[in-house]
């Protein structure tokens, strides 16, 4: 890690000289740019793939991947850990060292605090970086201001576990510590949110845990949406078959406030629902950096992008992929982010070499576990139709039924997609 040491020394120098001055324009340049460069913000399902594929397609482009952590934990499959099916998060955790050694991606562990679109420069906790094109794949943040009483400490009490890692472990611990006969409350925000079937898979996995280990307990699902958002028929079928009397599903119930002292959530400010464990998933928007950089659209939530290249319609030379972006019919899923990253990478390379844009083709595949042995899936193929990303008609759709084979295939899905991201 020569780079880290050098950048650290530079930062120390800059800090001494720049006291009291605004950070932008004063922070040390982390790695001076010589040739063509793409900087990628975020080392998740989208960012790792964008970085890798740009390098695979054009070795003349320098790629710098900036990620806050030295590892990434997958949200897909984290529900299996919460349900006690996976023993820990090891299988879901990747590192970035092989992206560096196999593909020459330069990995910088730092937090991105600002983007100067006009100056083609980002500011990070370790210094600034210049770019020709920027890929922003930062994931989501929460609209906590829409829940009265929610503050910085709330996730420690009522975990969202919607970003995998310590929050996932905390929710698991709370479930393990809960007495038999207890009540779990899971609140689902209004869509769109990260992983449309995620809350319902989680419900299934928590129910599986309760049925197996705490049979007198139950889970109440308060869903702000009028019905289950994804794979609804299959979840309902699975819940009836395996979790009758354990899952109490209540649609069109929006949590607007919490009472931390009483461990209650409040529906529309009036109806109180008490939980011994509360998995409160707040409503969502694009991650903070996308907000700060002015990449979100009129809805103040998500980032509008050119539907062929994922270039922001608000700032030139900045591409937004993954959960933060508005990608037409492609859902906010891990596989979508993977697919979007490749589309984006292909066309960044085309644009930087003065070539014609390549037409879009994308896929989403997404598995959800109902029990430890049975899963369901949704799949789709995407193409551009009248300027928007749309599902190809006649293709895609959900599983006909719960399936043991799909639970087996899902494991290989995880193995392959995480291997793609880390090697």
């Amino acid at each position, binding site marked *: 890690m020569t780079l880290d040491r050098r950048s650290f020394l530079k930062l120390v120098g800059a800090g001494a000289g720049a006291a009291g001055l605004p950070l932008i324009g004063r922070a040390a340049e982390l790695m001076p740019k010589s040739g063509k460069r793409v900087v990628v913000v975020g080392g998740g399902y989208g960012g790792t793939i964008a970085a*890798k*594929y740009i390098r*695979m397609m054009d070795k003349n482009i320098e790629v710098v991947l900036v990620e806050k952590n030295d590892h990434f934990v997958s949200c897909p499959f984290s529900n299996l850990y919460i349900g006690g099916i996976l023993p820990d998060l090891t299988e879901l955790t990747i590192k970035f060292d092989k992206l560096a050694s196999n593909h020459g991606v330069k990995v910088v562990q730092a937090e991105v605090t600002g983007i100067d679109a006009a100056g083609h420069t980002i500011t990070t906790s370790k210094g600034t970086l210049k770019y020709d094109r920027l890929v922003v794949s930062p994931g989501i943040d929460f609209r906590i201001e829409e829940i009265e009483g929610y503050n910085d400490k709330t996730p420690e009490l009522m975990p969202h576990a919607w970003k995998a890692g310590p929050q996932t472990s905390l929710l698991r611990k709370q479930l393990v510590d809960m007495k038999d006969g207890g009540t779990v409350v899971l609140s689902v925000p209004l869509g769109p949110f990260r992983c449309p079937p995620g809350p319902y898979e989680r419900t299934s996995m928590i129910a599986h845990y309760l049925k197996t280990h705490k049979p007198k307990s139950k889970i109440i699902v308060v869903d702000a949406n009028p019905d289950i958002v994804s794979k609804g028929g299959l979840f309902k079928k699975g819940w009836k078959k395996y979790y009758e009397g354990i899952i109490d599903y209540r649609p069109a119930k929006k949590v607007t406030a919490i009472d931390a002292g009483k461990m209650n959530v409040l529906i529309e400010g009036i109806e109180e629902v008490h939980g011994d464990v509360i998995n409160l998933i707040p409503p969502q928007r694009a991650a903070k950096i996308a907000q700060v950089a002015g990449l979100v659209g009129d809805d103040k939530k998500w980032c509008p992008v050119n539907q*062929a290249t994922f270039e922001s319609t608000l700032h030139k030379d900045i591409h937004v992929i993954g959960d933060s972006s508005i990608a037409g019919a492609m859902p906010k899923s891990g*596989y979508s982010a*993977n*697919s979007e990253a*490749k*589309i984006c990478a*292909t066309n960044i390379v085309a644009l930087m070499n003065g070539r*014609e*844009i*390549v*037409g*879009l*083709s*994308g*896929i989403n*595949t997404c598995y959800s576990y109902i029990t430890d042995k049975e899963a369901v*899936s949704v*799949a*789709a*193929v995407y*193409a*551009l139709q009248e*300027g928007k990303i749309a599902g*190809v008609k*006649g*293709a*895609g*759709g959900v*599983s006909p039924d719960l*399936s043991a*084979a*799909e639970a*087996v*295939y899902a*494991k*290989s*899905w*995880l*193995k*392959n*997609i995480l*291997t*793609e991201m880390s*090697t």
Partner: protein
Amino acid sequence: MMMKWRGWTLATGVLAISALAQAAPPSAAMLSNACAGCHGTNGGSAGPTMPSLASQSKEAIEAAMKKFKSGERPSTIMGRLAKGYSDAEVSAMAEYFSKQKLHATNQAVDAAKVKKGASLQESNCGRCHIEDGKEGKDDTPVMASQWLPYMQMQMADYLSGTRKMPEKMKEKVDPMSKEDLDALLHFYASVK
């Protein structure tokens, strides 16, 4: 490649013209990369129940996709996905994957079974699965280094009748014991 796409675009007429107004049609790489989330980068699978597509025979991929599409070959997700592609797109993907380097896997295989499987391969299967399964003949798939769990699941589908065995294969498979078949699959998994 460019000539081929241009020909394909012209052949599809009016629809293609409106698509061209936005961008060129998807390239073979664009189409194929979308599959790599499940089948691995360049079709080299890391997941034991998902087949590698790298170095697979072009005709075998085309035949598989056609059967997934019609439902003749059983699947979970592949039938739903196959319906999203034209024949020309399937051919482009098949050709792309056929040109990728064979993905050599390091699987745990039983040495005794590999030895037995090697002799069974030579006397029974080698006329179609040529070069120790490293080459496909027409639509006969490449077997070398394929994942053992994947091949075992497919063989189970063949034996149960949910996947229809080609006549020539059936003639060879019918007299073999389950142990013979298992040995064969261990052999194919071991070939690099």
